[in-house]
């Protein structure tokens, strides 16, 4: 039964950081990761007709991104690329259009337990971050994930240092509650 619907107007705001985090851990290059995320959104737009509604919007975009990452490694033909192609694409004979949602749960995607746990932890953090008000999430990401100086954030967002710390406090409290519920 088709439950999920696509709304591309919100894709960048809702999923760009999540997809970027997923990509950067696999390609280790910010510029390439941005290109792949951008290509993923564009490919998603083009193949909206193939979406069956069985997976969530985010899961569907991730499945496109996985394909993009594999294509990237194929292109550069590195040893890492060959290994990833072997791991994730052991049968290539599927028809176009069906592979997207079928590829979502790939049991060979990760081998090391630690990496898998980190990925799940990253997902849990992003799930919790997505529940925060936009301003709190933005300030928290800039301060905690990107490591910006307080002054830089205040200048960029036009807020005072006191405002920043209030937003950080609220974000941390809400995140800790959410992580406690879902992870700790």
């Amino acid at each position, binding site marked *: 039964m088709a439950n999920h619907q696509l709304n*591309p*107007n919100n*894709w*960048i705001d809702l999923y*760009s*950081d999540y997809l*970027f*985090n997923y990509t*950067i*851990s696999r390609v280790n290059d*910010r510029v390439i990761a*941005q290109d792949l*995320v*951008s290509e993923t*959104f*564009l490919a998603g*737009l083009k193949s909206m007709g193939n979406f069956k509604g069985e997976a969530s919007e985010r899961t569907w975009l991730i499945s496109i991104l996985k394909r993009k990452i594999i294509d990237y490694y194929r292109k550069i033909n590195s040893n890492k690329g060959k290994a990833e192609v072997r791991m994730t694409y052991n049968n290539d004979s599927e028809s176009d259009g069906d592979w997207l949602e079928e590829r979502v749960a790939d049991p060979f995607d990760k081998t090391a337990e630690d990496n898998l746990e*980190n990925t799940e*932890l*990253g997902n849990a*953090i*992003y799930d919790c971050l997505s529940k925060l008000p936009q301003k709190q999430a933005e300030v928290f*990401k*800039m*301060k*905690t*994930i*990107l490591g910006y100086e*307080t002054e830089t954030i205040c200048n*960029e967002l036009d807020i005072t240092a006191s405002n920043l*710390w209030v937003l*950080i*406090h609220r974000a*941390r409290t809400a*995140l*800790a509650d959410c*992580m*406690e519920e879902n*992870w*700790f």
Partner: protein
Amino acid sequence: MKKSFLFISCEEAKHICDKSQYNEATGWERIKLAIRLSWCRVTKAYSNRNNKLTDVIEHAEVDCLKNDERNNIKQQFEKELAKHQ
């Protein structure tokens, strides 16, 4: 009321605790926080949870886009989106 030289409120302690997660608390603030932590269970619980959150985020090695990077992607995407609508 005159502000105490050494003893701080729970709210102030939480604020210092938040700042110390980013190494932005001064030495004097850290001393005041340590004193508060020695007897206040509420502050201690908050501090433990806060430290745990910091550890988890560091452990996960999460990353995200900078604003200008996100805006570039957004601009490109919106051009294509306009063609589709």
